[in-house]
């Protein structure tokens, strides 16, 4: 896969307006921080990703802004968890 799979959960899913999408990885997007900027620039519901509380996981493991991305990765954005 040359694409990223991107998932959204809880109120972020509602604000973005979708639960998942695929994205042909742009050349300049090499980190979580760059992906987040790229998505926010789309406007519509995406600026919700700028909320400072938003968490991110890459390939089902918690990640941070500096985490590197590669084609085929699964990236999930979500609010702080509230289970239990």
């Amino acid at each position, binding site marked *: 896969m040359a694409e990223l799979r991107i998932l959204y959960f809880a109120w972020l899913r509602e604000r973005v307006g979708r639960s998942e999408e695929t994205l042909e990885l742009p050349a300049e997007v090499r980190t979580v*921080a760059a992906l987040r900027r790229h998505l926010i620039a789309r406007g519509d519901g995406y600026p919700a990703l700028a909320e400072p*509380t938003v968490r991110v996981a890459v390939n089902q*493991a*918690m*990640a*941070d802004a500096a*985490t590197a991305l590669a084609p085929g990765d699964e990236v999930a954005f979500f609010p*702080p968890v*509230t289970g239990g």
Partner: protein
Amino acid sequence: MADGPRVAVQPAPFDVAAELAALTAGRHDIGAIGSFVGTVRDSVGGRRLAAMTLEHYPAMTERALAGIVAEATQRWPLLGVTVIHRVGRLQPGEGIVLVLAASAHRAAALAATGFLIDWLKTRAPFWKQEHFDDGTSAWVAARSEDEAAAAAWGEAPPPPA
């Protein structure tokens, strides 16, 4: 642990008695079992709750729970662990989460029970949405007390982005 921990994420209710029986079946080395059950309340902040929906991130959930259980198993001499978390729509009074931790002695069993639920609350990808009697819904906000409770156990993983 002889049979390994039991971790499950399911829409169906859990049966505490059956889980306790399974955890201790044929085991006579267990001297103490701590447990925690979280349930849906019928009012929140003075508003009547009609139901609650638990959303999760299926590909990540069991992996996150298994990691939390592995950490508990490293910290305490446990003889059995069960973690069951429900997803989907739940009514007031229904169980949300069950944690069981067995050990030879009570200090380890009780500490591991508290650790498992504290870490689960801040590190497992579940989100609660509350549905009120008046037809409105709201996502539950994370509580700073939960972060503090989890952090009090020390050695937190790297902070999220």
